C-alpha cells in the first residue's frame, strides 16, 4: 500500500481501501479503514497521492509529539552496547503533492492507540504508549500494523543499567518504508542510571527502503532545535 500514486487509483489491503475516482473532472478521495470513512475532493488531476507511514503520534488526535516504547526489562552491562529490534505502531499518512507543495490530507491506523505519562503530572510528558517484545532479528510484522525499530542502547558508564522503555521525539523520527515493512533506526545513549538521550539515525534497517514524508516538515514546524530527546525522568517505569 505504501507508495506514490497518480490518480485516479484504487488500492486495498487488509481492512483498508483508499481510492481517488473521477466523475466529470471532479476527483473524489475516499478512504475506509476498519469501517471509519473519510471523503474529500481534490481540485485538479495534476497532483500525486503519497501514502507513507508517518510519525505515530497523531491519532485519535494530536496531543503530544512523544512516543514511548515499553519493553520487558533489559539489563545492560557497563561500557557495552546492546542492539535489538522493537516494534512501533504504524500510522498511515496520505499526502497530496501538487506543483511542488505537499499537504497531509488524511491519517489513519489499524493499530489501537494508548497514551501514558512519562515523568510527573507537574512537568512530565504525555506520550503515545506502545508495548513491544524484544527481538534479536528483524521480526516479521504486519506492514500496516507495526513497523520495526532498530535500537542500540549504549551504556558508557560504570554501572549496570535497567531499561524498560525508550521515549522518542517524533520531530526527530526518520521513517523508511518498503513493500515489506516500515522501519526506523535509533540509539539510546545512557547517561546514568536515571537518564538517557535518544536519537534517530537517518538510515533504513535494510537497503532499498524509501524515505517517508516527515509530518513536521510538511506542517512547517521549524522549531526543532535539538537532535536528541533527553529522558530525564528515568529509564524504568515507576
Amino acid at each position, binding site marked *: 500500500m505504501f507508495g506514490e500514486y497518480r490518480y485516479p487509483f484504487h488500492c486495498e489491503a487488509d481492512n483498508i481501501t483508499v481510492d481517488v475516482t473521477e466523475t466529470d473532472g471532479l476527483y473524489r478521495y475516499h478512504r475506509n479503514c476498519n469501517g471509519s470513512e473519510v471523503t474529500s475532493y481534490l481540485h485538479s488531476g495534476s497532483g500525486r497521492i503519497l501514502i507513507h507511514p508517518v510519525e505515530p503520534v497523531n491519532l485519535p488526535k494530536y496531543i503530544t509529539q512523544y512516543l514511548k516504547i515499553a519493553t520487558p526489562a533489559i539489563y545492560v552491562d557497563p561500557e557495552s552496547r546492546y542492539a535489538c529490534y522493537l516494534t512501533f505502531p504504524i500510522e498511515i499518512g496520505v499526502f497530496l503533492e501538487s506543483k511542488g507543495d505537499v499537504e497531509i490530507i488524511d491519517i489513519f491506523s489499524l493499530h*489501537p492507540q*494508548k497514551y501514558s505519562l512519562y515523568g510527573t*503530572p507537574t*512537568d512530565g510528558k504525555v506520550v503515545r*504508549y506502545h508495548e513491544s517484545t524484544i527481538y534479536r532479528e528483524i521480526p516479521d510484522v504486519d506492514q500496516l500494523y507495526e513497523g520495526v525499530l532498530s535500537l542500540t542502547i549504549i551504556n558508557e558508564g560504570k554501572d549496570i543499567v535497567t531499561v524498560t522503555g525508550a521515549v522518542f521525539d517524533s520531530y526527530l523520527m526518520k521513517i523508511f518504508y518498503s513493500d515489506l515493512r516500515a522501519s526506523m533506526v535509533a540509539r539510546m545513549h545512557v547517561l546514568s542510571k536515571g537518564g538517557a538521550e535518544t536519537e534517530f539515525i537517518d538510515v533504513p534497517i535494510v537497503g532499498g527502503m524509501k524515505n517517508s514524508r516527515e509530518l513536521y516538515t510538511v506542517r512547517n514546524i521549524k522549531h526543532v532545535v535539538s537532535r536528541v530527546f533527553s529522558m530525564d525522568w528515568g529509564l524504568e517505569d515507576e
Partner: protein
Amino acid sequence: MNEIIAVVTGYEITSGVTVLEVAIFAIIIIASLIVARVLTQKVRHSLPDRIPKNDREVISKALYFVVAGIGVIIALPYINVNLSGLFVAGGVFAIIIGIAGQNVFSNFIAGLILFVERPIKIGDNIGIEDVLGTVEDIRILSTIIKTYDGIYTRIPNFTIFTANITNYVAHVARRFEYSVGIRYQDDADLAMSVIRSVVEEHPFALKNPAPKIYVDELGDNAVLLSVRIWAPSMVWWDVRTELLWKIKVALEESGIEIPFPQRTVWFPEGKTTIQTTKGDGTGTEMTRP
C-alpha cells in the same frame, strides 16, 4: 575665522539666549528623539508575542514619550526656560494623576507581575473566584476570560493578582473521579473488571498513572465503586464525558445494574408491618394492628 564663529555663536537671539545655546537645545532634542525611536523599535521587537499588539504599542509609545520628555527637560535650560515652575506644576499634576490613577497603576503593576510569574497563559482553562472559563487575552491592565457558556468577562489584573487562581491545565495531566453504584447482589469484582476494561480501551485514559478502581463505600442503596482516572489536561473533559456512559452501558451488558433507592413494604397476616430495607440489608420496621 574664529572671531566670526565666536560672534555668530555668541549672538543673542533673545535676551540671554545665544545661537550656540539654541543649537545645543536643538541637538539635544533631535538626539533624544532619535534615541527614543531606536529604543522604541528595540523594545517593540523584543516584547514577547504573548503580549497583545495593542499593549506592545502602548508600552512602546510610553517609552518614546518618556525618553523624549527627558530630552526636553535636559534641553530647556539652554534656552533659559525656568523648570522650577514646571516642576511645581508637574508635581501638582502628578499628585492628581496619582490619586486618580492608583487603580490603573496597581492593575498595571499586577499585569507586569503576571507576565513574569505566568500563573496563567492564553488558552488555559482557569477559575478565578466565581468565574470559570478560558483565558482569551492577557492585557496590561486586565485579563479577558471567555466563560464556558461563551460570555466575555474582563477581570482587572489586580483582582487576578490577589485572588485564588485555579488553573485546570497548568499540569500536563490531571485526575478525575466517578462514583459508580451497583446493587448489593451484584459481583463487585466483575463490575470492577468491566470498568477497568472500558477505561483501558480509551486511548486518552492514561496507562501511567494507572487508573484506580475500588469499592469505596457500602451505601444506603448501593455498593459504591470509586473510579479514578488520569488523563492529559488538554482532553480530560472529553475523556470524562465519553467514559461515564460507556461504563454504564458495559455494566448493563454484563448484567450489573445501577440501583435506584428502594423500599420494601411487607404485609404479614393479621397485622400490617412496613419494613424498610436498605440496600445493605439494614432497615426499620413499623407495626400496626
